[in-house]
C-alpha cells in the first residue's frame, strides 16, 4: 500500500469512534475498514476533465462546486460561532464595571464572607439581596455526579464489551449489541424521568438515604447514558486488535484469559481510554438527567448521598428567567464556556488516545 491510499482507511475509524458519542451514530472498525475507499488523486482527475467542463454549463458547475466547498466548512464555522457567541455573552464578566459590582471572577472562585453567614463560604444564591455566585459547589457537584457515573459505567461498559468481543457466541452477541444500541437511543429526558419517578424511590428504600434525590441517583441514571458510548468504542477497540497478536500469544502457550489480560487489553488500551474520555465528556455535559434526578441543591460536599447542582443543570434551570445581559445571564454563559472548554479537552484527549493506538498497532503489525 502506498502511504496516500492508506490514509483514508486509517482515518475513518477514528472518526466513526469519535462521533460514536453522539449515540446513534456508530460504525464498526471492521465494517468501514473493509469497504472500498475512493482514493484517486484529486488533482490529476480534475485536470483531465477540465476541457469538457468548459464546454458544458461551466457556470452552473462552478457554482455548485463552490457551494459544496462553502458548506463543507459549516462544521468549522459552527465550532467557531459557538465559541465566539458564548464567549461574547460571558465577556462582560471580565470588564463590565456594572456587572463587576455584582460579581467578579475572584468572588466566584474564592470563599467570601457574606453578611448573615458565620464564616467565609462558597455560596450559590443568584437570586438574593446580595447575589452570590460561587462556582465551586457547582463544579464539585458536577465532578461528583460524573465520578459516580463513571464508577458504574466503566466496569459495565468495558466488561460487557470484553464479553461480547471475546466470549460471547454469535447468538448472544446479536442480543447484546442491539440492546446496547437500544439503550443509546433512549433520550436522556426519559432516563431522567425514570430516575425521578422510579429509581429514586428504590434506591432510597434500599440504602436508607436521607433524601430521595441525590448525587447517587443522578450518577447511576447518568451511567445509563454513557454505558453505550463506552461499550461501543471499547468493543470496536477490542475488535481491532490484530488476530496475529492473539495467535502469537496462544502459540506461546498462554491461556485464553492470559491472552486477554496480557495482550488484548493492553493493545486495545488506548481505544478503551478514548471511549472512557468520550463518556466522561458526555457525562459532564449531560443536562436533563441531572436536572430531574439530582435535587439541584448547591451543596459543597463529597457525600454521594447529598443532593447536587451541576453546571449544566444550573444553566438549564436558571437561564430562562434571567434578564438578558445582566450579571446572572453573564455568569450562566461563563458556565457554558467552562463546559465547552472541558468537553473540548476530553474530546481532543480521546482523539489523541485513538491516534496513539493506531500508531502502535500500525507500527507493530
Amino acid at each position: 500500500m502506498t502511504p496516500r491510499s492508506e490514509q483514508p482507511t486509517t482515518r475513518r475509524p477514528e472518526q466513526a469512534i469519535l462521533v460514536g458519542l453522539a449515540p446513534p451514530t456508530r460504525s464498526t472498525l471492521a465494517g468501514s475498514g473493509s469497504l472500498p475507499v475512493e482514493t484517486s488523486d484529486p488533482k490529476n482527475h480534475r485536470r483531465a476533465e477540465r476541457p469538457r467542463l468548459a464546454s458544458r454549463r461551466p457556470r452552473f458547475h462552478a457554482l455548485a462546486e463552490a457551494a459544496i466547498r462553502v458548506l463543507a466548512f459549516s462544521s468549522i464555522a459552527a465550532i467557531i460561532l459557538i465559541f465566539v457567541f458564548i464567549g461574547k455573552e460571558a465577556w462582560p464578566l471580565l470588564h463590565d464595571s456594572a456587572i463587576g459590582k455584582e460579581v467578579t471572577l475572584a468572588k466566584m472562585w474564592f470563599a467570601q464572607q457574606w453578611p448573615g453567614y458565620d464564616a467565609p463560604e462558597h455560596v450559590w444564591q443568584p437570586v438574593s439581596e446580595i447575589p452570590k455566585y460561587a462556582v465551586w459547589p457547582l463544579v464539585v457537584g458536577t465532578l461528583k455526579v460524573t465520578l459516580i457515573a463513571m464508577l458504574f459505567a466503566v466496569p459495565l461498559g468495558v466488561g460487557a464489551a470484553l464479553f461480547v468481543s471475546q466470549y460471547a457466541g454469535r447468538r448472544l452477541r446479536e442480543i447484546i449489541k442491539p440492546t446496547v444500541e437500544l439503550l443509546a437511543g433512549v433520550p436522556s429526558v426519559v432516563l431522567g424521568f425514570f430516575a425521578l419517578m422510579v429509581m429514586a424511590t428504590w434506591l432510597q428504600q434500599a440504602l436508607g438515604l436521607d433524601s430521595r434525590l441525590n448525587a447517587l441517583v443522578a450518577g447511576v441514571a447518568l451511567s445509563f447514558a454513557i454505558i453505550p458510548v463506552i461499550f461501543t468504542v471499547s468493543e470496536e477497540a477490542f475488535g481491532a486488535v490484530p488476530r496475529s497478536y492473539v495467535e502469537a500469544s496462544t502459540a506461546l502457550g498462554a491461556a485464553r484469559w492470559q491472552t486477554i489480560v496480557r495482550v488484548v487489553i493492553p493493545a486495545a488500551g488506548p481505544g478503551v481510554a478514548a471511549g472512557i474520555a468520550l463518556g466522561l465528556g458526555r457525562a459532564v455535559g449531560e443536562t436533563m438527567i441531572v436536572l430531574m434526578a439530582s435535587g439541584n441543591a448547591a451543596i459543597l460536599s463529597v457525600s454521594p448521598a447529598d443532593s447536587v447542582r451541576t453546571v449544566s443543570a444550573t444553566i438549564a434551570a436558571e437561564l430562562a428567567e434571567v434578564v438578558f445581559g445582566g450579571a446572572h445571564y453573564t455568569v450562566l454563559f461563563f458556565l457554558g464556556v467552562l463546559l465547552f472548554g472541558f468537553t473540548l479537552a476530553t474530546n481532543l484527549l480521546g482523539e489523541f488516545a485513538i491516534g496513539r493506538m493506531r500508531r502502535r498497532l500500525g507500527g507493530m503489525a
Partner: protein
Amino acid sequence: MQKVQIESVGNQTRNQSILKIITQGLAIVTVLLAPLAAAAGEITVKGSDTMVILGQRWAEEYMRVHPKATVQVTGGGSGTGISALINGTTEICQASRPMSAAEKEKLRDRYATIGVEIPVARDGLSVYVNESNPLTEITMDQLKLIFTGKVTNWKELGGPDAKIVVYSRENSSGTYVFFKEHVLKNADYTVRAQSMPGTAAVVNAVAKEKFGIGYGGAAYAKGIKVLKVKKDSESAAITPDEAHVKDGTYPLSRPLFFYLRNKPTGDVGAFVEWVLSAAGQAIVTKVGYYPLK
C-alpha cells in the same frame, strides 16, 4: 450518461425516484409550514408556574366561549414572565409576587410606563409535609429556621428524630421570592434546600419523602398534608382555607397578579374583563385558589 450499463443501474434509478419523492415530500411540508403571517387576535400569557394551571383553565374556558380568540399560556416562573413583559415577548404576565422596583424601572426605561397591576385571584401559600408526619401546625419562626438551615431535625420541633429534607423552588419562581421575603425575611435559603423546577415536583417529592417539607400554592395540595401556620407562638394556628385567605388572617396569603404594559384594550381587554367576571372567578375556585371577592 446514467444509461451506462453497470450492474447496479436498477438500484440507481430506483434510488433516484426515491430521492424525487423525498424532495417533493419535504417541499410539501415546507409549504404547509411556511405561512409567515401570525394569526390575529392572539393573546399571550406568560409567567408564574403557580398560576399556570389557572391561566390554562382560563384560556381553555375563554376559547370555548369565544371560539375566535386564541390565548396562549406558558409558565417558567414569575421572573420569566416579567422579563418577557420587559422584553416585549408577552402581552400578559402572570405573577405570584409584586413586581420589584428594579423591574418597574426597566419597564419604564423601555416603554415609559410602569405597567398595570391587576390582582386576579388570591392564594394561601401552603406548607406541605408528608402525610405520615405527626406535626399539624408550625410557626413562622420555625419555618424560617427550617428553610435557612438553622433547624435540621424534626426532633427540635417535637417530631420524630429524623433529618428534615427541605424542598424549595427554582429561583425563577415568584413563590420562591415571596417565601424568601415573607418567611425568611430576605435571608438566604439553606444550601441544602433542593430546588424543584415546579410546584408539582415539590408536592410529588414531599408525598414520597417521609421527612420532607416544602411550600407551594394551595391548589396543588394533593396527597400531602398541609400544616396550619401560626404568626407567632402566641397566635392561633390557621388553615389556608377560603375565609382565612380572603380576610388576610392566614399569614401567607397573597394576591396573584396579571401585569400588562398598558391599560388593556381590545382582545386583551375583553379577556381580562372576563377573568374578573363571575365566570372567570368561578374557575379560580375550581382550580383550587380563592376568588377575589
